[in-house]
């Protein structure tokens, strides 16, 4: 689901369709939308697991404050997907615990 017509923000700007790679699978996304939006539109709700209990987490605040939606983006852990725009060819991986930083 994407919000294409917002009562206050108006219509979503036209954007190029691109492919990103999520846990190795290609996912269609719109360039410039937030990674979390693209994943939500693709039906992906689990973004990471917690470091102690390995419990699943996803979008919570959606405004870049809570860090619940962080994932490994292009090899960097702790990236807040709700405020990070999609770029073509991006690699996005589920972050397990504190993740892996190469």
């Amino acid at each position, binding site marked *: 689901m994407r919000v294409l017509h917002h009562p206050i923000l108006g219509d979503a700007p036209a954007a190029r369709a691109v492919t990103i790679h999520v846990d190795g699978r290609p996912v269609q996304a719109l360039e410039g939308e937030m990674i979390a939006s693209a994943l939500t539109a693709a039906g992906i709700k689990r973004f990471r697991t917690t470091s102690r209990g390995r419990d699943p987490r996803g979008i919570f605040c959606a405004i870049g404050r809570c860090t619940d939606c962080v994932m490994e983006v292009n090899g*960097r852990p*702790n990236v807040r997907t709700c405020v990070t725009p999609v770029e073509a060819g991006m690699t996005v991986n589920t972050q397990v615990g504190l993740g*892996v930083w190469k």
Partner: protein
Amino acid sequence: MQKADVVVIGGGAVGTSAAYHLARRGRKVVLCEMRNIASGATGRCGGMVVHCYGRELNIEKTDLRLMYTRASTRIMREYQKSFEIDFELRQVGCLDIAIDEQEFEGLKELLRIQRSLGDTEIELLDKKQTLEVMPNLNPELIAGSRLRRSDGNLNPFKLARAQALEAQKLGAQIRTQTRVEKILLSGGEVQGVEVADGVIEAPHVVNAANGWAHQLTPGLETIPVRELAMVTERLPKLPPQPFEMLCLGDFAYGATQTASGNYNLGGPGPARPPGYDYYDERIYVDEVYRVMSYIAVIFPKLAEVSVIRSWVGTMAFTPDAMPSIGPMPGAKGLFIAAGYPDGMAWAAVSGKLAAEHICDGRTSLPIDHLDPGRFLGQPKVRWPQPYDLTVCHDFLTRERALKHAK
């Protein structure tokens, strides 16, 4: 009026160690802390345990420093067997990095001296080996390094709290939010201390107030230093060596990853203008930015991460960079344990020495060289000497400018 055998002033790692060791010896101890446990240098430092801080070329001092700090680590290992709180001591090693060939030659000389004293724990690493141990450092800034595997880090809050808790179990009273206004002396002998709500009578007082110690004991030379520290978001484990970089002399910028994954970063702030307030605990955004940008030059990977909290604290040095531990001349019953540039490596043994001196009249390790009266009658040390921060600042600014120019 309250009575005690010993009043300990200061609730940092050193004061709580003294309270614990005194309580263990059956003494009735009251610890007075003007704020809360670990509110001074202890709670504001990076938590690095460095057995031979600095690049002291004086053989005698190096030998002494190792004797005390090794004893301190042994005591902490003992703590770990019985203490309720785990203070996360991890001996992961620490790198002392030389940034150019000239500095590296100095490190080699230091290593030669330390080896001649029977110190076999240290290794000299060339550039390649240093980067193998810590691959994330800026290769352009490294000529070589010295690695001591017994160094490492701990959680300073937990160390102070652990010692305070064990002291309390043994009957010590910990009074927080209790500022000691004055150490009471009569006829050259300690009578106790004055606090806001009265007097605590005691024949022995331990002054472990570090950056504030000289305010209570005139003649004591402890020089306050204002240092910045930051903590990053939790990160995956990187190769675990913390590092200190003694940039062009005596300024250590350091980074160390804690048990929980956060990185503690720190170092001296910008060059100090005259009239600088070393007790100012407000933090300013520009100084955080500046220190962080220096560390990012040394450790480029950290340029990408978020700092979640930053703070400043008042540390304390003495003119010869060795702490003052021992009885204060002219004040019978007053024991000083203050002025630590590298307190986490000394705290445990300092409190033990205080307890031994008070209970037995002698100590298991010699403390003559740490005599708190050794600076009496000597000219006062004033900043920016001997630590001229502008040198350091200029250097790192230049490095940063070079990097940005590429």
